C-alpha cells in the first residue's frame, strides 16, 4: 500500500531546519574542541560528538523515531559492530607479536 499519511508540510519543514541548526552547532563543536576543552581526550570527545550527530540523523532525517522493528534491527547491527570492536580493542591492547608482525613494523 502506498504511504498516504497526511503531511504537515510546515511543521515537518521546521523540524528539518531545527535538525540542521543542531547538526551545524555540533559540527562547530567538533572544530573548536581540540583547541578549547578536554584536549587530553580529543579522540573520545570527537567520537562522542559524532555519535550524537549520528543519533540525530538516524532519528529525524532517517525517520527511525517511532520505528520499532527497523529500530531494533539497527540496534542489533550496531551491537555486532560494537561487540567485535570491543574484542579487537582487548586483543590489540595485549598485542604480543610485535617482533614477528607485519603490521607493527615494515616486513623484514
Amino acid at each position, binding site marked *: 500500500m502506498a504511504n498516504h499519511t497526511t503531511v504537515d508540510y510546515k511543521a515537518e519543514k521546521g523540524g528539518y531546519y531545527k535538525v540542521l541548526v543542531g547538526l551545524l552547532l555540533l559540527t562547530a563543536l567538533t572544530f573548536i574542541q581540540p583547541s578549547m576543552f578536554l584536549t587530553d581526550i580529543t579522540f573520545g570527545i570527537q567520537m562522542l560528538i559524532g555519535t550524537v550527530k549520528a543519533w540525530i540523523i538516524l532519528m529525524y532525517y532517517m525517520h527511525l523515531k517511532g520505528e520499532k522493528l527497523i529500530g531494533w534491527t539497527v540496534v542489533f*547491527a550496531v551491537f555486532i559492530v560494537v561487540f567485535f570492536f570491543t574484542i579487537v580493542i582487548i586483543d590489540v591492547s595485549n598485542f604480543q607479536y610485535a617482533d614477528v608482525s607485519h603490521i607493527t613494523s615494515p616486513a623484514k
Partner: protein
Amino acid sequence: MAHDSHDSHEYVPEIAVDRNGKEHVVQGWQGDFDGAKLGFWLFMLTEVLMFGAMFMTLTYYFTLHHADFIHASSELDRTLGGINTVVLLFSALTMGLGLLKMRSGDVKGAKLMIWATILLALVFLGVKALEWTNDYNEGIFLGLETMQAGGGKSFGEILFFGMYFTMTGLHGFHIIIGIGLMLWLLKRINSKKVSPEHHILHFNIALYWDLVHLIWVFVFPYFYMTGAGAIHG
C-alpha cells in the same frame, strides 16, 4: 506478482480473490511501502557492517601506532574536510526537503531539491579532488615513493594514509553512486513512475543519502580531527 507487457516496473494492481470471494489488491514493490523500506534498511545495515569492519581495522592500527596516527592526521587539510562536512550537511537537508515536497504533492519542488542535492554532491567531489591533488603535490598519495618503506614516513603514518585514501575513496564512490541514483530517480519522476502516491523509491534514495552523510560523520573526526590537538598543543 504483477506483470505488464510494456514495462515490468510499472505499478499495475493485481487482484487476488480469497476463499470467501472477497477481492484484495496484490502489492507490487512500489506499493509495498513498509516492505520496500525494511528491505532497504537491511541493505544499509550490510553497508554499516562493511564500514564498521574498516573502522575496526583503523582502530586496531590507531591503537598500535597512536603517535604516528595523530601526527599523520595533523597533516590533513581540516578546512577542506570541514567544508565538505558542511556541504554534506546541507545536501542531507535538500534531500529531506525534496522528499517532504514529494510527499506533500509538490513534484516540481521535489525535483528542484534533488537537483540541489546533486549539485552539492558534485561540490563535495570537487573539494575532495582538490584535497587529494594537494595531498599528491605534498607527496602524500598511494604508490608514491614517499609512501613506501624508507621513503621518509613512519610505518604508522603509511598505514594511516593508506586507510585514509581507502575509506575516503570508498565514501566518494558512494557519493558517485548516490548521484547516479538521484539522476535515475529524476528520470522515474519525469515518467511518473515515482509520484506523491508511490514515492518509496524517493524515500529509499533519501535514506541512502543520509547513510552516506552518516558515514562521513565518523570518517571526518576520525581522520581529520584526532590530530588537531597536535597543532594546537
